[in-house]
């Protein structure tokens, strides 16, 4: 041997000690960081507890006052009210949490109504039908949508979409009616096209060449809208809504929140659902296609049953996001703590309430603690939903793995 570059004992000792020290430090630091993150739940719980056993606070708070309708001055029957600060002197604060919970769930529900069909349809199309080249471009693009800041979406919803819909309510409704049959019509026409044209407009690129078609449908709708409004609604849809359905159209309402938030949560549902669908082992798909199933039959009979849990977890994660989204609701909902089922009324969500009221609430007071309770509810809800979704997803991954798929 030419040499023995063994280090001197002192250095050996130094390296060993340094290693032990660093390991201890990493362990301590790692546990510390994780504990700090996890401390959020603990902090909220600790701050909320005094609500229920301190009796000195003037407005008595217990489960009953929070969740059941109460007798308030000026109301003949018990009602739910969230009015933390009364405008006049000496007025009592009214702390019924139900309107906030209702608002939160209503907003999330409308968001899901918008986002889920859109996201799942898009996921199905891009997992099974879309050309690979297009998909490689489109998927990241749609995923980038996820990063769109809530404040921008909220601004567009509250200050652009809401006033627009205020004027063009009939057009919006016509679009909703026209789009699905219009797309089906596109499919029907396409099937009748000559083979040459059909090759030039392949199904795999439908996402792109349908865009002009959508524009055409838009044009058709704006032509049809006044006619429809005149035929069915006596020329004024809003008046008709108010008279025959008793629905009052609020400028910023649940539908607008749902559209904006649906736009915001759609990409995350899409991304997760697409992963689940395209992760289905190819052997299954090939088996079904070899038996003569169409792509759509394959999707429906084979891919969806296999990927079902993954799709479900995608929807759950979307729901978690919708429940906690703050800025969009804050800017597009009007923030009125109402408890109505009408999608044309405003609403106020827990997250928006926290954002508006917490800076003004006195720390340690009842109002402050109630807002913290709202935060705790949000935390627990999203954490549970996400954990469930994560467990489902990891099970699914293992299942694909067993089935021999590359996911």
């Amino acid at each position, binding site marked *: 041997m030419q040499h023995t570059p063994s280090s001197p004992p002192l250095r050996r000792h130094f390296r060993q000690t340094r290693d032990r020290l660093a390991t201890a430090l990493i362990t301590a630091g790692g546990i510390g960081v994780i504990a700090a993150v996890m401390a959020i739940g603990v902090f909220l719980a600790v701050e909320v507890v005094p609500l229920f056993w301190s009796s000195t606070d003037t407005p008595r708070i217990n489960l009953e006052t929070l969740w059941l309708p109460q007798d308030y001055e000026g109301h003949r029957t018990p009602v739910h009210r969230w009015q933390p600060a009364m405008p006049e002197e000496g007025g009592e604060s009214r702390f019924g949490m139900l309107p906030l919970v209702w608002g939160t769930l209503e907003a999330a529900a409308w968001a899901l109504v918008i986002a889920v069909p859109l996201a799942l349809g898009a996921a199905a199309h891009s997992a099974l039908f879309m050309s690979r080249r297009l998909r490689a471009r489109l998927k990241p693009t749609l995923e980038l949508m996820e990063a769109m800041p809530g404040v921008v979406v909220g601004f567009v919803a509250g200050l652009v979409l809401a006033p627009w819909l205020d004027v063009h309510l009939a057009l919006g409704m016509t679009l909703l009616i026209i789009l699905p049959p219009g797309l089906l019509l596109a499919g029907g026409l396409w099937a009748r096209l000559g083979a040459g044209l059909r090759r030039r407009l392949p199904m795999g690129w439908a996402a792109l060449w349908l865009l002009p078609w959508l524009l055409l449908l838009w044009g058709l709708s704006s032509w049809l809208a006044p006619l429809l409004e005149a035929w069915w609604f006596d020329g004024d849809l809003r008046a008709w809504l108010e008279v025959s359905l008793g629905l009052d159209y609020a400028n910023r309402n649940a539908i607008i929140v749902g559209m904006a938030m649906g736009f915001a949560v759609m990409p995350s549902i899409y991304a997760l659902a697409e992963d689940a669908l395209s992760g289905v082992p190819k052997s299954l798909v090939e088996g079904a296609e070899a038996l003569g199933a169409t792509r759509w039959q394959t999707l429906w009979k084979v891919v969806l049953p296999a990927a079902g849990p993954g799709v479900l977890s995608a929807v759950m994660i979307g729901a978690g996001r919708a429940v906690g989204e703050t800025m969009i609701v804050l800017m597009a909902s009007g923030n009125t703590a109402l408890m109505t089922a009408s999608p044309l009324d405003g609403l106020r969500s827990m997250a928006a309430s926290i954002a508006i009221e917490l800076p003004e609430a006195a720390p340690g007071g009842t109002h402050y603690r109630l807002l913290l309770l709202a935060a705790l509810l949000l935390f627990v809800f999203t954490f549970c939903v*996400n954990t469930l979704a994560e467990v489902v997803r990891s099970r699914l991954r293992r299942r694909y793995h067993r089935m021999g798929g590359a996911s």
Partner: protein
Amino acid sequence: MTAPWRRSPKRAASGEGPWAWLAAGSVAASLALLALLLGLLAVRGLGHFWPADVAVVTLDDGRQLAGREVKEVPLSDGDGRERLYRTGNRDLDDAIWAWVDLDEIHEVDHPSGLVVLERRRWGEFIGRLEAIETESGERIVGESTWLALERRLTALAAHRDSIDVLRDQTIRPLVHRLEAGEATLGEREALAKAQARVHERQAAMPADTLVLETVDGRRLRQPLTEVVRALRPNAMGVTEKVVTWGRDVWRFLSEGPRAANTAGGVWPAIFGTILMVVLMSIFVTPFGVLAAVYLNEVAHQGRLTRWVRIGVRNLAGVPSIVYGVFGLGVFVYGIGGHLDDWFFASSLPSPTFGTGGLLWASLTLALLTLPVVIVATEEGLARIPESQREGALALGATRLEMLTRVVLPMATPAMLTGVILAVARAAGEVAPLMLVGVAKLAPQVPLDGEFPFLHLERKFMHLGYHIFDAAFHGGDVQAAMPLIYATALLLVLVILVLNLTAIFLRHHLRSRHGTLPKY
């Protein structure tokens, strides 16, 4: 993940049935929505700076008005359309908008002599420049008036700059010393001298008066010192307009807001956002990497670690407002309150750290983005083949040496990806900031020439909050809209660029590992 079955021979897709077309349509519709949103922001945001022509509208009844066309909508009572003009002249008309029924318009003209003045008070003036009255009582009229105005405005800008420099660099620090009771006699004299110089400069500003006339013949005498900028858009060629447009975009990026955030620029908000995000990265990077290294390299890989990992992953899905609540309760009221009691008792009851500020905001956002960094770093660590670790250990490396010399360098792109994603998320997050330290208008930026230079306790401005504030708390939302569009576009662009960088890095990381030989 690729889906190899797509390569299977083409089947006649005509038999797919109706649902397939709805699915395809939803992709197209999502794309259309995205394009619509981005297009709207881009067109409105950038279009605002375009020095569009000013129209003089003559109505059937002989009235005249001058303004820029904003939009055209159908009349609410059915037939016909009406057009909105932005007419400025708030001091004369009490409004800056005018609706005109298209049927009533007799004639629309674009005379080249119209000027648009941007003023410190009352916003824009649109009309004709009649004359300049100098201090000595001279009157400049005719063709040379415009040139004289331009010359004077240039001189004025130079004066303003020198006064600003004097204020920022000399007077403000001295005033602070004086307030703290530490100023020496010499410093007092210096202060007095500087203030005298400011007065001198102010006095030296051209105290001319502009004589203006609106298109409908009302006269206005406007002190020149109030005028920020003057344009004759109808007389400008396309190149000139492009140059002006570029300058205005730059002014938007580099100047402070005016008129309660409805005009001017967003520089303090850009600066505040960047500073906050940088501080946040400084907090989040080491801790995130530490936690990821612990979870992936040190911790016993048992059931507990698996649950902790899922928990950390899920914290990324907890609403940001909840983090804001935590930041307010723990950082601001908890730690900040105690810091005030211990170190800043003299200034109580006005809080120093016991209120929202830069430090607490960046800490809160660091906590919020910690899961992002942890997850990304862990993914990078998990992708490093075990053989690399064993190779290092087999050469006699300790675990620390293995980590620092082999594992962490290989995981660097993943860490960077995580940090960039965290920054992108933090830059767009507004809700928690509303609780822990953002301000609608921060008089002092948190970074300046005064010791200790970085003022962690100060409130700061933020692009996202700027949008929210201008859109919902400002007075005339309609007037602020173009600026909100521009701010939103800026925010979206910043976040887009950050995300694209992260995607690029992740791709780079993958392809580098792709070259790892698989024998």
